[in-house]
């Protein structure tokens, strides 16, 4: 690659104008070339400056109050909602599981060694929640909240899979790298052969229009692409998904693609995150 070609690719990548394969080439380059990575960082900085070239316009002055009112309402709603949850035991248990899931998700952003130490605590909590579910099973509370119980059971099953992946001493872990379309997003992919499952935790995914989804594609060693699942992140772009497809055993690369078509045989839409699966 000539210096001009490299410059062309890096500049176009920072602008977000490359096709997915070209973008993947750039990501591969910067992952092994510190000088290219530094150049790319400069181009990203330059691209962000382009926003400053717009002629200044003023929004409706009433918008300020609308934004601040909405923020106040959200704060208030958060404060009001908590006591109600606390009164409902099953809901509280579900909240505990979800909180645990969130904490665990956040912990994935820490180091792998941190994950090891946290896994024992997670397993204990999953067991405790399972016992709690058994206790609740015959109670009037759960009978009245059967749907909630099912939800809790599903969440616990998911937690058990997650715990199994996490506690596997041979778990493989790799960070997702954002493409130009997913600038600011990140996440981690963990695969456990023993658990026959993988887990993806993603954060700061770009918002997608209503009706669109994120689709997970797995590429195997023969460069065959298989779509394994779709998901929709929460309101702030976070997602945690479990993959149980047999294809994961052969995965060499993982792509998360924003798409409006969730049953296409080909990748449609921009790749937002990608990870290369390291094999021991």
């Amino acid at each position: 690659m000539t210096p001009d070609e490299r410059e062309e690719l890096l500049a176009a990548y920072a602008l977000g104008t490359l096709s997915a394969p070209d973008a993947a080439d750039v990501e591969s380059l910067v992952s092994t070339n510190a000088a290219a990575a530094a150049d790319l960082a400069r181009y990203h900085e330059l691209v962000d400056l382009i926003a400053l070239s717009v002629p200044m316009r003023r929004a409706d002055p009433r918008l300020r109050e609308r934004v601040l009112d909405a923020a106040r309402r959200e704060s208030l709603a958060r404060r009001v909602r908590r006591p109600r949850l606390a009164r409902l035991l099953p809901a509280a248990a579900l909240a505990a599981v979800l909180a645990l899931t969130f904490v665990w998700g956040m912990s994935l952003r820490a180091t792998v060694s941190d994950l090891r130490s946290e896994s024992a605590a997670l397993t204990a909590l999953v067991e405790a929640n399972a016992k709690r579910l058994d206790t609740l099973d015959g109670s009037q509370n759960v009978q009245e909240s059967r749907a909630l119980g099912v939800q809790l059971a599903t969440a616990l099953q998911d937690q058990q899979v997650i715990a199994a992946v996490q506690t596997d001493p041979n778990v493989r872990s790799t960070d997702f790298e954002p493409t130009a379309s997913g600038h600011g997003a990140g996440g981690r992919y963990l695969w456990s052969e023993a658990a026959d499952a993988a887990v993806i935790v993603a954060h700061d995914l770009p918002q997608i229009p209503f009706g669109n989804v994120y689709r997970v594609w797995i590429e195997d060693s023969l460069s065959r692409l298989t779509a394994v699942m779709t998901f929709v992140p929460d309101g702030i772009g976070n997602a945690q998904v479990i993959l149980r497809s047999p294809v994961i055993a052969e995965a060499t690369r993982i792509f998360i693609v924003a798409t409006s078509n969730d049953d296409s045989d080909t990748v449609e839409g921009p790749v937002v995150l990608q990870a290369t699966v390291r094999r021991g």
Partner: protein
Amino acid sequence: MPDTSNPDHRPPERAPIPLVVRGIRGRLHDVTQTVGGERTRASEPAPPDDELMARMERGEIAALEQVYDRYSALVFSVSYRVLSDRHLAEDVVQEVFLRLWRRPSSYDPLRGRFISWLMSVTRNRALDEQRRITRRRRVEYRDEEPTYQLPTHDVADDPQLGAELAERRQAVREAMTRLPPAQRRVLELAYFSGLTQVEIAERTGDPLGTVKTRVRLGMRKLREALTEVMSDGAGGGYQ
């Protein structure tokens, strides 16, 4: 520096007290803030963006107010440039600032400047909205402000942005204006319309190779023109 060429500008009776604004990389700049075309004296330095985000993390609505006052015009202007629709642009403004409020920790100071992150979030959100509309209505791109008419001076520059950010903006606008129109256009189509190089080639009717070359040359010239601004902590904002 602030524009003091306003004919209505009256010199202060005494020398203005400089408002100390923390620079992008921790350096201090002495600038005199101008509000409404007249110099004012500020007794306290403006809080840095990082400090405001930390206060938002603690749930201080006043911090959101300050961030809004500082950047809402810029966020709106970028959104409007992408969407060419005032109401849609205001929706984006609301979403961007509510996102900040819900999750201020999504900005990581170690990964870059606040203004860069904010512009990236704004652009992505506006482009998402544009793609949604395009799919729904199949509307044609409307370039309400052809690049060759890019003004070099803002008549409505927002004093809330602060003198330093206004200065940065001026440098960027001048650098963009100095680009050959064809190069500027591909950069703007890429940035504000979110088009790929292939899509730009289709839209402009130019060969793909020409588009690639224009992107490279345009970015190179922009980089050369803004080297000082970038190394000086480009992007404006209070850090």
